[in-house]
């Protein structure tokens, strides 16, 4: 089979990463911000897999699993907190949470 050049996958990862970054910075809704964070993490996982392919090692995929675990953990606690905020403050606006400042 013709192997896909890893650098192409890395370029895709860069694109996804910056899209996620833009999402975090631009969206005010917490759920969207969490999703954008997932996109960034996923991009990092993509680089790991691509790098593993470039070196012919399984380490890349192991690290991808690590990223996956991490994403799962972050989503779990993130969503729990978001639910809590939704219940307590009845808003998902990230900008509304700015009482701590100065």
């Amino acid at each position, binding site marked *: 089979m013709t192997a896909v050049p*890893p650098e192409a996958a*890395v370029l895709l*990862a860069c694109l996804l*990463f910056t899209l*996620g970054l833009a999402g*975090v910075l631009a969206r005010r809704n*917490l759920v969207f*911000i*969490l999703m954008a*964070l997932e996109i*960034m*993490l996923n*991009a*990092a*996982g993509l*680089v*790991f897999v*691509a*790098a593993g392919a*470039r*070196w012919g*090692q399984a*380490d*890349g995929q*192991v*690290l991808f699993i*690590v*990223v996956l*675990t*991490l994403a799962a*953990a*972050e989503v779990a*606690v*993130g969503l729990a*907190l978001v639910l*809590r*905020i939704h219940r*307590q*403050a009845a808003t998902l606006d*990230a900008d509304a*949470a*700015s*009482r*701590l*400042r*100065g």
Partner: protein
Amino acid sequence: MTGGDLTALLPFLVMGVAVPAVTLAAAFRRPALAASLAALGTVLAFAALWPAAGVVPRQVTPLLMIDGYALYFAGLMLAATLAVLLLSLGYLHRRPEPREAHSLLLLLAAFGAMAVAASDHFASFILGLETLSVALLGLIAYAHGRERPIEAGLKYLILAGFSSAILLFGIALLYLRCGSLSFAGIAFALGRAGSDPAILLAFALVIAGIGFKLSLVPFHMWAPDVYQGASAPVAGFIAVVSKGAVFALLLRLAHDTPLASGPGATVIQAIAVATILAGNLLALLQDNFKRLLAYSSIAHFGYLLLAVLAGGVLGAEAAAYYLAAYAVMTLGAFGVITQLSAGQAGDDIEQLSAYRGLMWRRPWLAAVLVLMLFALAGMPLTMGFFAKLTVLMAGIHGGWWPAVGALVAGSVIGLFYYLRVIALMAAGRPVEAVPEPTRWAGALVLAMLTGVLVWLGMAPAPLMALIRRATLGG
């Protein structure tokens, strides 16, 4: 894994046993039992450092490097965790939220911190760091029924996730370029192939990710908000354990790989100067004591970057001593806030105006706080003085003049705001001291911290000897 490996891992194994035990206690809603088990686990893990010290240095699987350096920081983390555990006892008493998860989360965070300090592989670093972050999130947003902890937790969640993603991306690029994830493997690959733009990019992203955890400028903005929103003991925990572990990792990374040489050094020096100046300036007229301590902590990690720049044995020794001193004085300062705020339900006593005349109302607490502030300002005969001196010497030794200049300027500014707090505490007329119930666990912690602060400030030699034995590459 050989028997020696297991002995070296003993502190981790003890913690690994303590965590499920505390989990069980927490699951059965036994907060007191959970706290006792957690404290016992920390103490036993601390005791396990001695057998472990007999068999190090030792690479335990490719992931962990158990050496004197890792054990030194593990000891520091464990001691700090124990202090926070004890401080939290009186603090959480009579607060509405359930208490049992608190000890468990502290224990998990400490475990993550220990793993980070012992990592010489990115996989264990990421996992340890994330365990630490996730548990910290739970601790920051721990309180029920109030808005500030939730807001602080939200900020920490988003920003820590954001910076973790950047860090991971950097690590992934590093792996892409070097084909290895262990620090030694990366150094080897770079030594063979030399540096190129992709490496610089990867290192820059790693520095940015670590910079967030250490709240270096310009990645620092979360710190004051989170410190303010979190409870005082947890804020102390973040400032000492979380930052300390990541700093230990940074130092090891800089020691093993060319992270802090060449262009990396320029970046770190720029960050150090910015961090010292901005941290101190932000603290200058701050009215909230917790925020003030947060800014001061930012500035202190700016000073500590000088040790990273200096590198080598000198830098590692300076950093190890500085972090111990920093742990004592920061925990002491937050400990005083904890003791003051214990037993009440709302936000902590953190407005500086509430500290006016504290010397007359709570003379003992005020005396401890004065000592801690003196130490933070770097006054002689406290640990803070010697810590700053070693870091300064390391910086001068390496000729990092901009950073050294910033350190001196920053210390002058620092003197102003620390003394400002002291002056405020001494202000007002002497009044009859208000008898308040003493929270013995917290009082014990403060007494020990004060003793250590003065003792090791007057005679730093024993600690220095310990550090010399434990230092990197030694």
